[in-house]
């Protein structure tokens, strides 16, 4: 009993304030006027020097958004958001589009260095060759730098900020934008369509295996600002790309809104592996502040035998509302979703996936690991549907929840729909507690309660960690331990 009691006591005095990325960078911003009107949309489009078609697309979304209501079905609660008290655009004053890394404001480079994301194209460090990762760095509303662009271009890979793609690759953007997540999709996606500021764009041409990991690092810095980025990744026939997204924000007492849209498209035999390590500021021990993370991510396996794999490690945000999904349209296409969602303090997570089987012999696999500690609520919400033509469709789902202490909650809400009698859908779910027996066993061998919990949790999420690119798996493992700091006695 004592160990559980201590766990509970420790959780009460929890220091979510252990958040390590909570600093604020002293960078002056160029802000749009507060609030959201048609003028705001025009302001953003003008700031980005966009063509008319882009502005029209935004305006149409804005008009539709005005008629929509926030979804209420998720298991999260928060006071009403005043959409008129948010800044929808914030850009560092130092200039929006530096030509090269040398022109980037040193304060911005310092910020990213502090976050452990050096914006340099250094390949060899002290004689040791490190795995190379191309980075697009998005700061508040704008992309400030993208590394390794030239080298990627040699392979024919386009990797740039979304704004740049609108200017330089309008045909590709127009062909694919909004074809996976239509601008009318849902309240937050529609809001994003109206005011999205920047994000990343990737195009991998037919038959090309992208020569390095691509990654975007999102940072919110400015107060009262929402971040609305948009990412579009296209893997053409037989192409392959692995992409990683990371996010952090300063500690602030107010809640901040993040409403992103990610669209992935794979053509015949192509594969996209999309990994997220989400570490937005989760709020303090009283539940003050933190990011509201309302994100729409969806992939379209448009071509035959194509594959989209989502891997997410979710440790941050006050509220997470996020369901990376796959539309399995191409014959024998495959969707995967691997998720670790860890909640502590007062965090609320409602996350999961949708696997929509449209084509014949499509397969999908869902492995979800939820870990709830403190007073947090952690919900897995998933939909698997097999449509009339999806003969031979197969899904396997495994959802495990682990509870630490007894003031938290874990919930599993699966929706399963089979309209084709030859589809096979399997669902397994378990909920367990870090048992006193396990803790005692570890303690008896000399481990502290904190080391023991981290060990047990890392064991619990291992299947999913193995899906992350090697160089990020270690990072993620550390992050999991940090997120659970103070969750045990």
């Amino acid at each position, binding site marked *: 009993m004592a160990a559980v009691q201590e766990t509970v006591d420790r959780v009460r005095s929890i220091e979510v304030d252990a958040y390590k990325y909570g600093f604020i960078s002293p960078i002056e911003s160029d802000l749009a006027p507060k609030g959201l009107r048609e003028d705001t949309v025009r302001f953003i489009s003008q700031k980005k020097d966009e063509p008319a078609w882009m502005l029209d697309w935004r305006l149409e979304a804005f008009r539709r958004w005005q008629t929509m209501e926030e979804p209420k079905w998720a298991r999260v609660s928060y006071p009403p958001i005043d959409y008129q008290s948010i800044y929808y655009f914030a850009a560092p004053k130092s200039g929006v589009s530096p030509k090269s890394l040398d022109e980037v404001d040193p304060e911005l480079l310092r910020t990213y260095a502090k976050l452990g994301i050096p914006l340099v194209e250094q390949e060899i460090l002290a004689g040791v060759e490190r795995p190379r990762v191309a980075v697009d760095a998005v700061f508040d509303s704008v992309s400030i730098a993208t590394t390794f662009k030239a080298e990627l271009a040699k392979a024919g890979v386009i990797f740039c900020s979304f704004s740049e793609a609108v200017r330089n690759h309008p045909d590709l953007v127009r062909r694919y934008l909004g074809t996976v997540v239509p601008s009318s999709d849902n309240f937050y996606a529609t809001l994003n369509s109206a005011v999205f500021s920047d994000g990343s764009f990737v195009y991998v041409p037919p038959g090309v295996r992208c020569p390095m990991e691509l990654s975007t690092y999102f940072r919110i810095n400015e107060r009262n600002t929402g971040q609305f980025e948009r990412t579009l990744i296209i893997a053409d026939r037989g192409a392959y790309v692995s992409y990683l997204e990371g996010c952090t924000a300063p500690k602030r007492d107010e809640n901040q809104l993040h409403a992103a849209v990610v669209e992935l498209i794979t053509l015949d035999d192509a594969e996209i592996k999309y990994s997220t390590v989400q570490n937005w500021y989760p709020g303090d021990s009283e539940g003050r502040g933190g990011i509201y993370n309302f994100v729409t991510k969806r992939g379209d396996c448009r071509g035959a035998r194509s594959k989209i794999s989502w891997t997410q490690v979710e440790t941050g945000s006050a509220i997470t509302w996020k369901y990376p999904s796959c539309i399995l349209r191409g014959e024998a296409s495959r969707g995967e979703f691997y998720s670790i969602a860890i909640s502590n303090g007062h965090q609320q997570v409602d996350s999961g996936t949708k696997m929509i089987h449209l084509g014949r012999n499509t397969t999908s696999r869902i492995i979800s690991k939820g870990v709830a500690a403190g007073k947090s609520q952690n919900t897995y919400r998933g939909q698997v549907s097999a449509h009339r033509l999806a003969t031979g469709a197969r899904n396997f789902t495994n959802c495990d929840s682990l509870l630490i202490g007894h003031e938290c909650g874990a919930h599993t809400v699966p929706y399963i729909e089979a309209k084709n009698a030859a589809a096979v859908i399997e669902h397994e779910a378990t909920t367990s507690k870090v048992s006193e027996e396990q803790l005692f066993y*570890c303690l*008896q*061998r000399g481990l502290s309660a904190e080391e023991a919990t981290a060990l047990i949790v*890392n064991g619990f999420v291992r299947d999913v960690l193995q899906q992350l690119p090697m160089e990020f798996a270690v990072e993620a493992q550390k992050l999991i331990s940090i997120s659970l700091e103070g969750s045990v006695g």
Partner: protein
Amino acid sequence: MMARTRAEKRRMLEIKNLSVSIEDTLILDNLSLSVNTGEVAAIMGPNGSGKSTLAYVLAGKPAYKVISGEVLLDGESLLELEPNKRALEGLFLAFQYPVEIPGVAAMTFLKAALNAQRRPRGESDLTTPDFMRRVREAAQALKIDQEMLRRPLNVGFSGGEKKRFEVLQMALLEPRVSVLDETDSGLDIDALRVVAEGVNALRSPKRSFVVITHYQRLLDHIKPDVVHVMARGRIVASGGPELALELERNGYRDYAEEAA
């Protein structure tokens, strides 16, 4: 002061008038027991006599309430210490039912435990080659193959594998006092022999063992220096190895009645 004679052997573990309850039921009733340095003490007794409770209370398992008494490990009071601090003081419990920890390789667990014990002593973490070498040597003696160590801790281990892994941990952690709780239960004769040999190899003038068992069988392989009989929560008889043989012949009935 420098040299101790054999007659003045130090007491490694001293339990004085220990009473313990769980959910208002008295399990240990004013129990006293001493184990000398270098001694192997067997504790035998019928089911429900409180043997496993004693093992758990020594290791600090939550849920047990100590009503009175004290426990000294090499003169230092144990009962106020957290379970992990007791482990760091050199107390080891070989569990009767080792727990499963899914996803954590036995090897990973060993490394975490070893380093957790080294750090407070001011020693640096073991390098991987050094760690691997130590594990390989200790594992070989216990007929544990490397494949088993890559599997998640105790998940799908057979009864014999679980007990051998307990002894492997004991060998690597080098405790001053090892409490073996029914380590013979669920073992066939071959596994029993391997485990007993593992324990015998660790016997030294600096280490003490408390071997808890229901049957005399284990004591054919691990020869105790003293045998204590436990019934109704206290030690009711103590003697040499011959006491175990007598119990084997006559059963516990006499002692159970005596203690009543």
